């Protein structure tokens, strides 16, 4: 049986928030109970609006922060049991990250060559000429030319900078790459180039991607599985085909319906969500989506739903469990 590269079980991350001098600090549950498996060569897309905890998840996976509770294992090693520094250093090489803003994530005072070699200096014992060789190999892999080696980040366009950031992430030969909104700062024509590059690299190096995005049309193209999050909680987790053809959770349905599309009739019926996402410091009781949900009833207000399997997707919703949505759909 193939082992998953990343295995997350009920991951939680809480941040204490100071509310004032002498007042007790409050608990912000940025991530509340996320579970998934990720296999080599697969892409898991994490979708949600700002404040839904998708970047917190990225930070946990990249081992920048430790989960408050829950289990996370990477390549068969359980992180909660690892305290040994050398082991954690070896693990860190396996997960690398590409950030959203290619203008902020590259040091403006370093040349591209130095930026690419830095991970090698820290993590490997290669000598200068070997490092240079590796950096040049990686540059040609992401479509940069040899003369770019001596240039500074400001001499590149946004798309090229994102290529540099991808090269830097891949130079340690990671197994998992966490892509935190990698194309949302780029123009449409450049966005397509970078997505193509990511797809080609994945096939070539059999990388596992965690693709964090709010853009559903990009996710639809690149993902194998999609995890939809709302206010730190997973609400729906299914394969791309199922999610886009037959979304189950009311929030997923609203999200898909709100996404503008080029090929649509003008007068299509949108599901309109009222209001905005509540504060994660003081989330609503029961299902956190209940203030904006058109199907909410008494159960939704009192008890949080758990993820269960409906029509090939795992969904956390009372209305589905009590067949208040499903039947209506059958009637149509």
């Amino acid at each position: 049986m193939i082992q998953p590269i990343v295995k997350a079980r009920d991951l939680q991350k809480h941040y204490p928030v100071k509310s004032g001098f002498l007042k007790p600090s409050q608990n912000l549950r940025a991530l509340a109970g996320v579970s998934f498996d990720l296999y080599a060569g697969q892409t898991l897309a994490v979708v949600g609006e700002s404040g839904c905890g998708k970047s917190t998840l990225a930070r946990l996976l990249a081992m920048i922060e430790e989960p408050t509770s829950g289990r996370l294992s990477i390549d068969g090693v359980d992180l909660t049991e690892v305290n040994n520094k050398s082991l954690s250093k070896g693990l860190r090489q396996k997960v690398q990250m590409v950030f959203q803003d290619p203008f902020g994530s590259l040091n403006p005072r370093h040349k591209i060559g130095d930026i690419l070699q830095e991970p090698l200096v820290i993590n490997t014992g290669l000598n200068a000429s070997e490092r240079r060789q590796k950096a040049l190999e990686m540059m040609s892999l992401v479509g940069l030319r040899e003369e770019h080696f001596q240039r500074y980040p400001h001499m590149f366009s946004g798309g090229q900078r994102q290529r540099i950031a991808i090269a830097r992430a891949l130079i340690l030969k990671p197994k998992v790459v966490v892509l935190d909104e990698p194309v949302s700062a780029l123009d449409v024509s450049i966005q397509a180039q970078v997505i193509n590059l990511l797809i080609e690299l994945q096939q070539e190096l059999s990388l596992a991607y965690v693709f964090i995005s709010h853009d559903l049309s990009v996710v639809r193209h690149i993902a194998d599985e999609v995890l939809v999050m709302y206010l730190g909680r997973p609400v729906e987790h299914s394969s791309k085909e199922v999610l886009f053809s037959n979304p189950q959770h009311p929030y997923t349905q609203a999200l898909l319906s709100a996404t503008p599309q080029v090929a649509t009739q003008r007068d299509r019926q949108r599901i309109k969500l009222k209001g905005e996402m509540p504060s994660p410091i003081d989330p609503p009781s029961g299902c956190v989506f209940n203030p904006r949900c058109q199907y909410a009833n008494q159960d939704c207000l009192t008890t949080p739903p758990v993820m269960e399997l409906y029509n090939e997707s795992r969904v956390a919703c009372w209305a589905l469990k009590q067949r208040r949505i499903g039947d209506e759909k059958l009637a149509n």
Partner: protein
Amino acid sequence: MPLLEIVNLTVDFATANGSFRAVDSIDLSIDEREIVAIVGESGSGKSVAMLALMGLLPWTATVSADCIRFDGQDLLGMNDKQRRKIIGKDISMIFQEPMTSLNPCFTIGYQLTEVLCQHFGGRRRSYNNRAVELLQQVGIPAAETRLNAYPHQLSGGMCQRVMIAMMIACQPKLLIADEPTTALDVTIQAQILELLVELQQNNNMALVLITHDMAVVAETAERVVVLYAGWQVEQRSALDLFSNPRHPYTEALLNALPERAQGKLLNAIPGVVPGQLDRPKGCIFNPRCCYVQDLCRQQIPERQEGVLCHYPLELDLKPSRSSQDMVTDS
């Protein structure tokens, strides 16, 4: 007579490396109660063109045009004082970043009533009721209490609503929205776009929507102007443009969208938008164009039927599905 008529608008910026043409002879006419979208990638001059109209460009910019007429008045020949009477009253503009376009030091109510005092005179307090009315119009709950709130107490979507309330306060004839939803989430984006279209219909405004998102254009606009590196490459009705693009750039841009991809890879446009120093000779799109011919590398094309290209793509004469839909709708 169109509400706004711009002929041959050109904007040059003085930079350390000589002058840079950000907008190159753009023609635009907008009728009353029309939704026009201006689409382009970053650096295409879409914001600069509209800022030039508003007179909001810095002193390094040189604006020249054959004609800028708004509602029968010539904006070109006006001095700043006369222009300010129109700007903000009859033409107003919403900017991309709602959080930074509001002044953090003043309350929402202060900033809303300021617009009204400026254009209609009188005391600020006398406009409080109108301010509440405006906030209700843009869908802000508990409007009376929100008048005393500061911008940091509101979310991004709420701030954008306040901006919109401010801009429609004087009942403008033309509202320019510069990427009004780029900084917002998808569900909030849908709310704001719907609000803008609703206000446009109720208040009989014309709406100019500046955006880079083709999907937003497809769902809202009636007419589309496509800009590329300061050139106006195509101007058509939205339905025609999406079913039948005639400029190679428009076609490439539409094909680059993930939803139009066939197979695993997207149809990316090779290369990047030319910068100040690497402008090609001839047609500005020729290094990236897949239909490029020798003439394109030599000569600047002339605009024909709204398309700026030597070899515009053939019109597909069969009526497409979407245009048939339109016939039955009307």
